[in-house]
């Protein structure tokens, strides 16, 4: 169970199911949302993971609008999830102070991204909007490209406050689905800033700008994505992203590759969108180093 889910459900028994998909459902409690699903969704700040057996039992019975009860003691209801152990997932990245990007080859990560990635933001990155047959997708890709171009701008530019504002407004809520592609990309970007901010004061500044803009513009996206973004702003991400960030911080090339693949496999295009954001931030970090800025200041 994620740290956010525990906080939301502590002292709260009944929730309302607001969305169901094959592998997870979201339910709403007065204190916020939690995501309940099978182990396959992986750990995350607002996730409550069930065994496949338990998940199938719930998935086959419950409908949107019904109540799902969370209990910390013995249960006696069909729509009840027993919170068996206080086993809380609260992983945050904690890079060493002397961390540097050198041991990790960003080229190999880009290569994995282009090999295993999918979705509109990848087309935006490739500049291949024309390949989309659907006009809606085409516009999403074009806007995605505008957002990506903004996030590529070197961090040493003075107008970054403005850039951050425009990038967030361009990307937040862009794309269909529960966590729009633009939102995932922003989360990935902020996670990259999070990683570098331990060793770079400029990255810390950019991170504050991005967070402030994202949090003040949250109404531009839906309630579910808002919840994920709020936790991302506090440094809590979904498990595959956290694992990747930790592997990069630890300078472990093999783990980096494996976790990158796991991240890219997530969702329809969610993992790819997140990875793009992360790589854009890491590239900016490297560019800062190349242009004479020390990351270790």
């Amino acid at each position: 169970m994620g740290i956010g889910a525990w906080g939301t459900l502590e002292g709260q028994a009944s929730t309302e199911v607001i969305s169901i998909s094959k592998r997870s459902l979201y339910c709403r409690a007065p204190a916020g949302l939690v995501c309940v699903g099978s182990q396959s969704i992986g750990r995350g700040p607002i996730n409550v993971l069930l065994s496949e057996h338990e998940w199938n039992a719930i998935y086959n019975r419950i409908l949107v609008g019904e109540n799902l009860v969370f209990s910390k003691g013995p249960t006696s209801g069909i729509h009840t999830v027993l919170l068996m152990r206080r086993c809380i997932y609260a992983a945050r990245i904690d890079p060493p102070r002397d961390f540097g990007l050198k041991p990790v080859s960003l080229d190999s990560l880009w290569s994995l991204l282009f090999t295993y990635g999918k979705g509109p933001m990848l087309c935006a990155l490739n500049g291949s909007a024309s390949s989309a047959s659907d006009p809606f997708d085409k516009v999403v890709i074009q806007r995605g490209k505008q957002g990506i171009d903004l996030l590529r701008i070197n961090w040493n530019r003075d107008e970054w406050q403005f850039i951050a504002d425009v990038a967030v407004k361009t990307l937040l809520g862009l794309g269909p689905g529960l966590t729009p592609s633009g939102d995932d990309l922003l989360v990935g970007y902020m996670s990259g800033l999070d990683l570098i901010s331990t060793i770079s004061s400029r990255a810390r500044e950019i991170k504050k700008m991005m967070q402030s803009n994202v949090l003040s513009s949250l109404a531009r996206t839906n309630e579910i994505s808002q919840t994920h973004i709020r936790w991302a702003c506090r440094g809590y991400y979904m498990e595959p992203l956290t694992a990747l960030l930790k592997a990069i911080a630890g300078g472990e090339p093999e783990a980096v590759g494996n976790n990158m693949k796991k991240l890219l496999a997530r969702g329809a295009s969610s993992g790819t969108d997140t990875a793009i954001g992360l790589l854009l931030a890491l590239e900016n970090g490297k560019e800062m180093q190349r242009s004479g800025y020390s990351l270790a200041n």
Partner: protein
Amino acid sequence: MVIRWLIKPKMYQDSVKLMKLSAELRKQDGVKQASVIMATEMNKSTLQDIGMLVPEVAAANADDLAIIVAADTEEQAQKAVELAEKLLNRAEVQQGETKQQFPKTLRSAVEALPGANLALISVPGTYAAAEALKALNLGLNVHLFSDNVTLEDEVRLKQIGTKKGLLVMGPDCGTAIIDGVPLAFANVVARGKIGIVGASGTGIQEATVLIERLGGGISHAIGTGGRDLLDEVGGQMMLLGIELLEEDPSTEVILLISKPAGPRTANKILDRVKQCKKPVVVNLLKGDLNTIKSAGVVGAATIEDAAYKAVALANGEEAVAIPENYWGDYSKQIAVLESQLRPNQRYIRGLFTGGTLADEAMVILSDIVGDIFSNIPLKPELKLPSARKSHKHTIVDLGDDEFTRGRPHPMIDPLPRNERLMQEYADPEVGVILCDVVTGYGSHADPAGELARAVARARDAYPSNNPAVIAFVCGTEADPQPLSEQVKALEKEGIFVLPSNAEAARAAGRIIKLHESRRV
């Protein structure tokens, strides 16, 4: 071109579903453009760019789902919107090619599937008897997976079932195979001539798996629930099961797997078996085999022996005991494992997820190494004071109520066994750890992988203790967790895998006996 739309306030769907839905709508006749999206500002602005933003959608907010269709005619656009709404309705979920329905009552389920003749009931015990009664009244056989049904309710349900000629399998019936269809926890086994009626879950699973390994097959496997043979219940479902298998043309041999029965019920069952037109093998774990033999019935002391005899009878051969070394001669492996033990590593610890598998191991091991302590002991004086702490030779059933209250069965959640394995590994006097791995429907997706990883962790934690780890995989190649992959995962971690639970128990006993003789 005509644009039609529909707003579904506060409706959340995942991206995959929305993309599939949009693509599906675009395939419809006359549809030029279709978008099913969350109405975020960016998405509305995107719609505006492509000329599809209507005022109603513009007024929707980020938590609303919007369906927007542009088509040649009004009728085509409207039809596509209606299709989208239908596909969004979860009451009829498309999963691949199969349409699954979710009726809310037993009656509507029967109406939706005319000809259905069995209901599998898995609801909290408080409600289970009422649901089972409804099912019986609708003319359905009942597989009652739920536990915590009172004995009075069980007696009443079985009386009604017997009167109507309908099975009440359970309560707490973990497994059954009816006409080749596995129900609840069950393995995917070959069809064949042997019908089983059993009072135990993993006992039936082991029997079906071994029968397949011995070249036989299963017609039906009927579970009765663990209390059926108490005198209060009177073995009603075992008697009905025998009757049904006797009449069943696909069944040629009947195998009864029994727990110790009440004296009146035991006599009743044996009288019925003597009158049966088909050959019957009776396995009575923890019971007195002489009672069965004196009744002139083929008896078997272990599930392995029972499976062997049933297959022999199905092949028209004589029902003799399984020969020694039938599965192979494992002396060399046993000697190697024994040679790695330190002098003080003298005890066996069995960590079982299946109660009957634990029983069978105890029956075999007590003949080889003497007293076995347990939470489900063969004799009352061998009961562990605390099931959570082993004493000398110990076998624990981790699926027993004491361990599963408020948490999943260890066949689903391997954590309790993993923790116990670590505990046993830490004990320098442990020479052999014996485990079962039960696969099939309902079980954990990779129980062998879990066990192998737990062993690896334990070895890392206690490198100087290196007990032999022995396992039996109760599974088949056709299970969702294929047997060969499960065995491979265990062997990769150095776990000695044997082809039957009895053989695994014998190997454990032989290692300890050999070690004892060397110490002397």
